[in-house]
């Protein structure tokens, strides 16, 4: 199975998936056929616990819709992804905030996507 297909299949099943390098232990995202840290092709899929920290955030306010955040999230397993923080006003999302993932099955593009909520645990 191709890395992208493996990722989207796992996402459709509600999982935040990433790869880990068997040789250098680097966490790898976006999905690849090799480890960008060391070049190894020995990668193993894993499931993230979905906990992370907001690394940066920008708010967009379309003229014809509600403001939304575009955020970079550093997952605790050691990889970063672009996402959005929902369940709160976009303008209240702060860098350094702890967040947890949820998989949203309904989306503008024809696939599920990972979103984040403020983690109050």
């Amino acid at each position, binding site marked *: 199975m191709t890395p992208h297909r493996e990722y989207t299949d796992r996402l459709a099943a509600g999982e935040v998936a990433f790869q880990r390098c068997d040789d250098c232990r680097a966490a790898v995202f976006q999905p690849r056929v090799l480890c960008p840290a060391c070049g190894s092709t020995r990668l193993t899929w894993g499931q993230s616990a979905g906990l992370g920290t907001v690394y940066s955030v920008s708010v967009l306010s379309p003229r014809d819709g509600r403001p939304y955040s575009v955020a970079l999230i550093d997952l605790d397993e050691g990889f970063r992804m*672009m996402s959005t923080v929902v369940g709160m006003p976009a303008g209240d999302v702060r*860098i350094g905030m702890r967040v947890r993932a949820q998989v949203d099955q309904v989306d*503008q593009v024809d696939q599920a996507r990972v979103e984040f909520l403020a983690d109050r645990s």
Partner: protein
Amino acid sequence: MSGPDLRGAAAIVGVAESDLGEVGQDRYAIELAAQASVAALAEAGLTTRDVDGLFCAIAGRGMAPLDVAEYLGVRPRYTDGTMVGGSSFVSHLHHAALAVAAGACDVALIAYGSTARSDSGRGRLPTGPPELPSYEAAYRPRMPVTGYALAAARHMYQYGTTRTQLAEVAVAARRWAMLNPKAFARDPLTIEDVLASRVISSPLSALDCCLVTDGGGAVVVTRADRARDLPRPPVYLLGAGEAHWHRTIAQMPDLTVTAATESSARAYAMAKLGPADVDVVELYDAFTINTILFLEDLGFCAKGEGGDFVSGGRIAPGGVLPVNTNGGGLSYCHPGMYGIFTLIEATRQIRGEAGERQQPGVTVALAHGNGGQLSSQVTAILGSEASL
């Protein structure tokens, strides 16, 4: 680092812009590239018949060198279509210097054209096949601005940089543009105007973002010994360096540190010069945060101090360091890939041809290109005969 000693081996002997601004709906990108090419060659006392090396990039055209060569009627023996976004042309200068020094070609023409502004009115935006699957599109970033906004937000968080400091960059660019008759935006601009403009992707507002104009440019490069026989004073390439570490913004290791740290270190090492030797700086200011990041990464101030460095008009006319003396992508011209204009302005400042905005006694100028999402960084250090 080793390799051939490129310092002073090649020189810029002609530069030109095409028509800029808004050229109208019956004009084409390649036409503008050709118009600039003819003018740059004429400055050098050359014609298209002399060109045997061709370097070009045009957004949305995967075979730009073939398009441009056919249009111009040139038959190059050396061709380079490196496409790394807006920095491509500074990269082309580096490659052209290597090529003329190695004898792979004698007269290298670097050419660019775009009708980005006019295209927006006629649904002619460049499109291409999908590359890799996107792991970003589902979140609706408005690219490229959101990528730069994320960098700005992180810089503000880490170093206390303020929106007022970002606005200082836009105001300085406008003050330079007011001295440049070719600049697109020449009305007075205040910090308050920038802060009050509509937020596009926070923290960046409309006036933190570059213009969208039409425009083309060309640069002619030849070997130093030949350059001395041509009409204009040669502008030597003293040092060049390239670096890129990522493509998409989520893969950028640290949003506050760009690969310009590496590209500039390579360029300074080749030039045997440092930031203190640079008289004018022409850098790629697609967004106000760029100027702050690059002044830090090019060594003009310490990491995190860029916001202070640009404040109080210090990079504006009459300030301590002249930055983007043409008005930059923010106020002079930005057809999508601005890098070639950093070379054109650096050359004019060294030759002393920049009119009202000319800086006194320019011996060394730095031109810095940026491409993608703060991705590709290319630095060139240019100098007059006296700098050799």
